């Protein structure tokens, strides 16, 4: 298995800016300034969520270090034999490594049976419980009241309980187990873990004596614990509050810095441009309009996607036409639907209509697009003298071909209406077939 740490390619004998660096020895064209592809330095240390019976620690370490899983496993086994360090490391890693969805290795993903929805925790638990109980039953008579029986067995029980309970810690895991119908199972696991740990502690504390003998001490310990909690609670709460406030303040500061950076890059630059071109009123208008639009979309629209929806597409078309001719277009869009070829045709036809409107019509140019379950309707309106469909031959071609014809080819319809003060182009599209969008 190749590791991610192998050099990206054979080291190239490239001298920076050397005269013949372009063809350094080999027949292949070599780009002198090409850097090795920027890779994330190494995969994060996360446990795979979806596979196997083990917690996935070895797999995580193997992925992170880029070595084979088998060698990691053997290392752990060897370390365990050498005084138990491996076991401690394993438990430590298990507790502290977050879980995540990791892209499966292709070889293992191809095996259909090997990828169950989740680990077979039930089976693991049953086997574990049987082992623990069996071990305890077998060991107790043999070891009697020896140190091993009274210390190691309870310690082991506590450890198992802690592991069972802590395996619930991970947030994603918790929501997965408690949130989605398997809540009972999750709680059961938690209760089992806590119960095991408590039993272990109890056995460890009593050391074979009767419970009543340590009862007073137990009570005292609990009283001290509760008292300490009461004393510490206000401090802890205040600390927690301070921490939260600091986090919020930090978030605000970051956001403010972002805004300042954006304003500097966009608005201040545009203002500088406008001052420089103040004699050219058309340019000033265009700059101001473009900047306004950009700022508006940044302020109100959130992150801009690509042309993934029809509403975004027609908005972009309107902006294009605005930029081309420096005429403001009042665009209103309601509803939305995915962007597909018919919608693309509508957007293109609308672009032609808008171009006609800003060229031949008068301001204001308004456009309204309604995207609903009964189809799409788009209206482009100008306030000029209007263009007569029959008296403007070159436009006739443009309108006939690019608006009327295009809409009809895509199952829609188009209509040009001359009004008293201007022209209105109507475009219609049927709803997406079979799609509920």
């Amino acid at each position, binding site marked *: 298995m190749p590791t991610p740490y192998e050099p990206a390619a054979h080291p190239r004998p490239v001298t920076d800016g050397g005269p013949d660096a372009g063809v350094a020895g080999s027949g292949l064209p070599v780009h002198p300034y090409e850097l090795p592809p920027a890779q994330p330095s190494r995969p994060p240390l996360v446990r795979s969520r979806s596979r196997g019976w083990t917690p996935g620690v070895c797999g995580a370490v193997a992925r992170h270090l880029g070595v084979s899983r088998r060698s990691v496993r053997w290392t752990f086994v060897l370390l365990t034999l050498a005084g138990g360090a491996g076991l401690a490391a394993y438990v430590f890693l298990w507790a502290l490594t977050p879980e995540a969805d990791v892209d499966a290795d292709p070889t293992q993903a191809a095996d259909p049976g090997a990828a169950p929805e989740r680990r077979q925790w039930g089976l693991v638990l049953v086997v574990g419980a049987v082992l623990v109980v069996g071990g305890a039953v077998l060991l107790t008579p043999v070891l009697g009241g020896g140190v091993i029986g009274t210390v190691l067995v309870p310690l082991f029980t506590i450890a198992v309980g802690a592991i069972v309970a802590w395996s619930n810690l991970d947030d994603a895991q918790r929501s997965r187990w408690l949130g989605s119908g398997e809540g009972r199972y999750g709680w059961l696991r938690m209760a089992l873990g806590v119960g095991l740990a408590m039993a272990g502690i109890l056995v460890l504390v009593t050391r074979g004596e009767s419970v009543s003998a340590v009862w007073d001490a137990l009570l005292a310990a609990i009283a001290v614990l509760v008292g300490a909690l009461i004393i510490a609670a206000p401090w802890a709460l205040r600390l927690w509050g301070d921490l939260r406030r600091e986090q919020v303040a930090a978030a605000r500061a970051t956001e403010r810095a972002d805004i300042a950076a954006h304003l500097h890059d966009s608005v201040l630059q545009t203002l500088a441009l406008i001052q420089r071109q103040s004699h050219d009123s058309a340019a000033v208008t265009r700059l101001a309009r473009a900047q306004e639009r950009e700022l*508006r979309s940044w*302020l*109100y629209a959130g992150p801009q996607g690509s042309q993934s929806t029809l509403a975004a597409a027609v908005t972009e078309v309107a902006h294009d036409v605005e930029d081309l001719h420096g005429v*403001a277009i*009042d665009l*209103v*869009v*309601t*509803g939305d639907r995915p962007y597909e070829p018919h919608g693309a045709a509508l957007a293109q036809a609308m672009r032609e209509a808008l171009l006609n409107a800003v060229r031949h019509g008068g301001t*204001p140019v*308004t456009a*309204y697009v*309604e*995207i*609903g*379950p*009964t189809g799409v309707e788009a*209206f482009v*309106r100008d*306030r000029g003298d209007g263009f007569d469909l029959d008296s403007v031959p070159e436009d006739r071609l443009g309108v006939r071909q690019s608006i009327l014809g295009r809409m009809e080819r895509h199952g829609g319809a188009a209509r040009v209406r001359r*009004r*008293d*003060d201007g022209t*209105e182009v109507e475009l219609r599209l049927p709803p997406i077939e079979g799609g509920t969008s």
Partner: protein
Amino acid sequence: MSSPTPTGGGVQSGPVRVVLVDDHRMFRTGVRAELTDAMAASGIPVCEFVGEAPDVDTAVQVIRAEQPDVVLLDVHLPGGNGNGGVDVIHGCFGVQARSGAPVRFLALSVSDAAEDVIAVIRAGARGYVTKTIGARDLITAIRRVADGDAVFSPRLAGFVLDAFGAAAGEIAEVDEELDRLSAREREVMRLIARGYQYKEVAKELFISVKTVETHVSSVLRKLQLSSRHELTAWAMGRRLL
């Protein structure tokens, strides 16, 4: 611009007394100059500026003192409880113009954000126009608001169609239903969204301008009173409920 007669609305004696509330002095000066020029050009003194204010608290004082017919109100203002124009409307609750009619508010904003517009409308504004509106259109809008009618920009009509689900085909069965638009109201809103003036809407639908005004006012009432989730959510966002 197709309605060049700003006095086409109701009959009212004397010019409309207007207070201008905006935190940008340049904008206030600009609007005053533009409107004064437009009125001088048309020869009809439709409105008269009786005061202006840069923030919420001054605005409430000026409005209470001057008792104007119409307040041109910016949506975003400093002062008050931090809700801008909404605070001004709340602070002037019950104030009457000298004519005895309630003081009417026309929101004037650069903001396209639905929550801003809907919040100020739900607080009681009679309409919303963007700051890029032309002087003559603004005069018409002021006149209309002074007469108690509603003023919808194409964008506000678009919001309404979206918010009431009308664009998605939800239609009220009875006109009184607050949470949906009637078929006629939807038609009117669609035409306004397409950029039609009231007069053109009337012509298109073969109804009178007065009927169009009635429909628009009815939509405004629904916008203010409806408990549709889309509207209350916007108002909640501004901590108004």
